[in-house]
């Protein structure tokens, strides 16, 4: 009965509903053992660039990710996909993500990019800074493409930082990725594309973990989204 509400149960239900293909493959992998040490876990640091924050109405523009295995970031696994959108880009957001219509026109179809992403995320825990964006847009994309939702094991570096930093310091963008990296003496990248931010996020997690007093287990940080 307990299982009925748990992540495992939700995963089995979704697995049954999902059509053959990338999503079903993804859901077919067992969720990671929550008791394993983080240093033994396989992770994928992820960042999405989008046209806005609302996954119902805004569009996914690019996906960047890189693997973390045994607390080591493996740059040979770094990937960056631009996605063709349905609508022309709105000028205000172009200023932020610096992705132009020209670049987008060379991108992949959403369904191909998502297929690559799910393939890479399979069997791994997603690491993202403010992971609701990444999980929300993935959920929306899966519903549109496969007619079925998803469940993703997630570590949110923003949530970790919020728990480490006293409440009164949460204001003034102190929790944004750039400020977090600064606090841990990490490089701050000039570019803010999805891959650079995914890499920053991966580095931030390594820093956060190394500052834990004892080697943490996955269950200390893991959540399931959406």
């Amino acid at each position, binding site marked *: 009965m307990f299982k009925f509400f748990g992540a495992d149960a939700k995963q089995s239900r979704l697995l049954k509903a999902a059509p053959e293909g990338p999503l079903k493959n993804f859901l077919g992998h067992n969720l990671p053992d929550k008791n394993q040490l983080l240093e033994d876990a396989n992770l994928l640091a992820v960042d999405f660039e989008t046209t806005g924050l609302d996954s119902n109405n805004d569009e996914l523009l690019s996906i960047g990710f890189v693997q973390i295995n045994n607390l080591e970031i493996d*740059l040979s696994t770094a990937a*960056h996909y631009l996605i063709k959108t349905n609508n022309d880009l709105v000028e205000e957001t172009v200023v932020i993500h610096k992705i132009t219509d020209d670049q987008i026109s060379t991108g992949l179809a959403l369904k191909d990019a998502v297929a690559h992403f799910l393939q890479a995320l399979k069997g791994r825990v997603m690491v993202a800074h403010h992971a609701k964006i990444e999980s929300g847009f993935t959920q929306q994309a899966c519903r549109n493409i496969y007619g079925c939702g998803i469940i993703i094991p997630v570590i949110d570096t923003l949530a970790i930082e919020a728990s480490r930093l006293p409440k009164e310091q949460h204001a003034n963008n102190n929790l944004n990725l750039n400020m977090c990296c600064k606090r841990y003496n990490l490089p701050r990248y000039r570019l803010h594309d999805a891959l650079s931010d995914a890499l920053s996020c991966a580095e931030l997690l390594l820093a956060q973990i190394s500052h834990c007093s004892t080697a943490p287990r996955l269950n200390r940080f893991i959540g399931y989204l959406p």
Partner: protein
Amino acid sequence: MHGELEEIYEFVRTVRPFDELADDELRKLSKQLTIRYFKRQQKILKTGQETDSLFIIRTGAADIFNADGNFIIRVNEKGCFGFVSIINQKPSSSDVIAHEDSLVYILSGDLFRRLCEQHSDFKDHFVMAESQRLRKALSQLRNSHFQFSARLAAPVTGIIRREPVMSADNLSIHQAAAKMATENVSTLMIVDANENLIGLITDRDIRNRVVAANININDPVKSVMTQQLVTISPDTMAFEAGLLMMRHNVHHLPVVSENKPIGLISTTDLLKLSNQSPVYTISEVAKATSISQLSNISQTIPEILSQLVNSGLPAYQVGQMVSTLGENINIRLLQLAEQKLGSAPIDYCWLAAGSLGRREQLLHSDQDNALLLSNDFDKPSHEEYFLLLTRYVSDGLNECGYVYCPGEVMATNPKWRQPLNEWKNYFTNWVTKPEPKALMYCSIFFDMRSIYGNNELFDNLKAHYLNLAKDNNLFLSHLSVNALQNTPPLGFFRQFVLVNDKEHKNQLNLKKRGTAPIVDLARVYALADGLNSINTHNRILDAKAYAVISDEAADNLLDAYEFINHFRMQHQANQISNKLEPDNFANPDELSAFERDHLHDAFKIVAEMQKYLAQRYTASHMR
């Protein structure tokens, strides 16, 4: 589409020796790294641990300790470690501990070996001795400077403006002047029947030697031309030509090839190469009629230094040029003093000691000077004149920025204003009874040079002390101990706490710990063999020529001196362009990876030479 990792690439290309690799190689390599994070105090490598990776510090720093737990070196951002294990295929021979929270890039041993196989420059960085690396760095430094400002370092042939205007030596003064008028030149080169250059005549010569002296213009031009000529060859570099003009105080230099004129260059030609030429400044110094004028001219010296450094001249040449300016200010002050006080009652010569004596003065340093009087000195009748003379010059120098010597090593101090015999006694005492105070004086007075007056007095004194010091092992061993007191700051690379006074804490003293140890070494070499040279660069060259030290040691030491000196000058030039007061204190953050690497190489060479000197002279002293 796969990851570009632009930012990783941009970082790696700034790390030595990765900067030797081509762009596409670097981009490929950026995608093959892994990244780890180490918390402060965390062990990155343990002694005996199997490792086959190169570690590159992206942010933070790591300390390396040997197996006995002794601290060896600190590796900072952009620094590498782990290559010894890869090259020797052995486990780690040291402990590496994160000094700060550090993000570290890791390159696999396989990739490292492949890079070494394919790029000898890359490999050399890890396997070459310091001396080899330093030599390579210097040549790179020169090449890059040549690209920036080739003008002063280019051969003079490039600035010769026209074919040489010559006339045969059988012409009359009148004919020569007519030729100068038609050719519209101010200088005419006079050649013999074989077109060998034998003299020069200028507008000014015609005014001074012909018209003013009422000489018949139909006399042969030969009789009034200048015959003692300073000439240069076509491959002379422009800055060398400038240096010659300064030394000989001439405004034209014929360029000759096997004594045949090929052109003429003037101070004006050189002036066009740089807007604030030292050659021009020297002529201004010679024209000055008051201390306040000299003081104004003197204020342009920092700008000149800055330009010379940026023009790519070797550091020792920059030192010589700037010293020549200082020297000429001394000379002009003495001339003004003599104009004011009348001619000296007896012969004397003005001695520059310390950095000016060695022709290594950079910016305004303390004045170190002395006066050597002829043995005709009669205190009651002459004392007053020389006191006034030395006061005038010393006060003038102080106003020109060469402040009074805190140790009172100045000609105004009666102790350092003595007749020849007394000076000889001083040196005899210093050499035969080398006490601490005497040895302190040695570093000042063994670097003396006569810059004005009767040079023979000084030649006599110098012969006296060179003879005393040569092969005098007791004296040399004391001098060596003294020379080993300032050690190169190898600790700089361990920890940045170097200077303990508050203002310059954590800074590297580029003079005391940088150039001074080399200056001290060179002095011992010169005195050990009775060598006449005073300039450190020349002393090392002479020590090589007379086999005081091996060719290899001399070449290495010259490179070390050049690199440290260059860095020190560049540091001051940067301060000048940033409107800061130039000093000898460098901040660790100021160092590029290239500079940090090669300063370290240079300091190691100096330390090595100090060790060698210690074995050679101090052992006998200890026994």
